[in-house]
């Protein structure tokens, strides 16, 4: 169906269901219970899940298929964000032109960076993309923000001011990002017993776009183009001596994944019309790498899982402070309680990045294939227990899930 085989179609259905039912799935605890702090069904957070999902899905098209590790993808996210806010400033708060421009500008940007960076492969490529991203950050943070020529508004961040032209802005339209009058902040609340579920217009816009982008990525993975990209990763020598020119293929993959990142950046601005340079910093580039490898690079579902998990943990972990910790361990004797709090405290709250770094290392060291590989290992373990005589599974090529 839709040009997909049955397995891929089922995967698409699962992602669709997860995305559309997220307001229910992410709110399992009643709002007055102590566990409510683990709920994630808030519009802000849910928007981040799907937007970073798009970012990671796009990154995976480059890294997962070709093996080219870009350390500068946050630059495209930032370019997308700025483009979208500029459309708000010039045309008005309708999100559609903004999102479209985000994709176009980040595509052009990715093309220019790609031409230079893809002259080299391997480590060189990673370093070059990192350097380009840092240069973009410097450009956005200070160079392109001066009285003569202010494109990014520097440290303050780009935002809409009252004296901006907004030529298509009409009095009836909301004074916030909207889609043909439907405000992105519009939220329906549904009260069922002790549970409160929130349905946010902005979230559903992002979710639908994410599903479409996921579908597109399945098509790319399964297309001859995707096969060529995997061939580049597998053996570039043979690729050349088969009469294929690898560079336009990798460039195309780079541009496509840059456009995904730009789209994600545009959506970030569409949800909250403020674009800052910090979105382009190397930590942001590192985060999308982590999302992809945590879920499983080169797998279809991996980036979606990875981005969801990381954004969820980021939210939960940063909320925990020492009072919360003391509450948790209050059942322990006092000395032990303090010890536990002291041990865990560096990893939560402001120390979230430490957890991120440790997680990064643990995944690379012990589970380079990410959660999807972990799941397959567990599955294999169970299968082996059930029937010890089928061993052909291991030698069969396992297509990416």
């Amino acid at each position: 169906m839709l040009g997909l085989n049955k397995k891929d179609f089922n995967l698409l259905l699962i992602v669709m269901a997860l995305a559309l039912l997220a307001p229910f799935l992410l709110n399992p605890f009643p709002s007055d219970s102590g566990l409510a702090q683990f709920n994630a069904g808030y519009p802000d957070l849910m928007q981040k899940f799907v937007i970073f999902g798009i970012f990671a899905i796009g990154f995976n098209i480059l890294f997962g298929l070709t093996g080219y590790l870009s350390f500068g993808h946050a630059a495209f996210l930032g370019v997308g964000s700025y483009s979208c806010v500029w459309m708000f400033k010039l045309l008005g708060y309708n999100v559609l032109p903004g999102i479209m421009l985000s994709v176009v500008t980040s595509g052009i940007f990715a093309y220019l960076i790609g031409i230079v960076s893809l002259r080299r492969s391997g480590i060189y490529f990673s370093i070059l993309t990192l350097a380009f991203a840092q240069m973009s950050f410097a450009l956005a943070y200070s160079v392109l923000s001066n009285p003569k020529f202010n494109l990014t508004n520097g440290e303050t961040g780009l935002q809409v001011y009252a004296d901006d032209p907004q030529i298509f802005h009409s009095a009836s339209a909301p004074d916030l990002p909207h889609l043909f009058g439907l405000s992105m902040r519009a939220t329906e609340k549904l009260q069922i017993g002790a549970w409160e579920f929130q349905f946010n217009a902005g979230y559903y816009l992002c979710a639908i776009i994410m599903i479409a982008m996921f579908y597109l990525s399945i098509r790319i993975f399964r297309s001859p183009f995707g096969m060529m990209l995997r061939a580049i990763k597998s053996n570039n020598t043979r690729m050349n001596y088969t009469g294929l020119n690898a560079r336009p293929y990798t460039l195309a993959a780079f541009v496509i994944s840059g456009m995904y990142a730009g789209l994600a950046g545009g959506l970030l601005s569409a949800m909250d019309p403020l674009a800052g340079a910090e979105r382009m910093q190397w930590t942001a580039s590192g985060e999308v790498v982590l999302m992809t490898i945590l879920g499983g690079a080169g797998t279809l579902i991996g980036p979606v899982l990875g981005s969801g998990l990381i954004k969820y943990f980021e939210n939960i972990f940063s909320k925990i402070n020492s009072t919360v910790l003391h509450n948790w361990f209050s059942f322990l004797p006092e000395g032990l309680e303090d010890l536990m709090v002291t041990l865990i405290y560096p990893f939560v709250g402001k120390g979230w990045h430490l957890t991120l770094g440790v997680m990064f290392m643990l995944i690379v060291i012990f589970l380079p294939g990410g959660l999807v590989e972990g799941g397959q290992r567990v599955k294999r373990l169970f299968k082996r227990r059930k029937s010890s005589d089928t061993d052909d599974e291991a030698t069969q090529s396992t297509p990416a899930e």
Partner: protein
Amino acid sequence: MGILEVKNVNKRFGGLQALGDVNLSVEENSVHAIIGPNGAGKSTLLNCLIGKLIPDTGSVMFDGQSVLGRKPYEICQMGISRVFQTPEIFGELSVLENMMIPIFAKRDGAFRMHAIESSSNEKTIIEQAEHVLDSLNMADKRHMNSASMSRGDKRRLEIGMCLSQNPRLLLLDEPTAGMARADTNNTIDLLKQISDERDITIAIIEHDMHVVFSLAERITVLAQGTPLVEDTPDNIKGHPKVREAYLGESA
């Protein structure tokens, strides 16, 4: 006038004369072997033929066109296919996918942005790939991960991938190196079958005399970067110069 004409090719690496005035002409639809002791410059010559090295002087013409300065993929598109000493295949891909890629490349050229391919087109490609696999007796392995095959099978697959593009010249670099006897014989049979059934020129660099004398129609002996003699296998066998070159090496 042969299909491959090498004229006055010289190549120096620092102080070392790797190739000195090499002239070579490979007849169309023949099997031509290039042999010689270690360090005779066989690999250097091969690398000059496929664009990896550019000779200091001289010309390399394929079917009237110069190959010098062209990129490997362009040379491949001219109709020269190369088989490597260690089989170069797409190890992470299945056997069938390995076979599909050269067929796509033959159809679409060096690059085509077919991100979304119609399934009927893809079916045609798959059928062609399966046809080639059938002819190699590898149909049952099509869903295998190609990296997990035996060396002989990898070689078979690599040759098949080259043939699927209908090249006019097939270059083989010690195709049986590191192979068991059975695999070697299988490869010889495969190459014999190919040269009998197709309009194809085969140039082969080889150490193993058994392989050379079972396949070649003409043999060039290379020593110290220069061709010593070129003749039919029967005349090469007892040639004093050849014996001298090889004995000189072993002594």
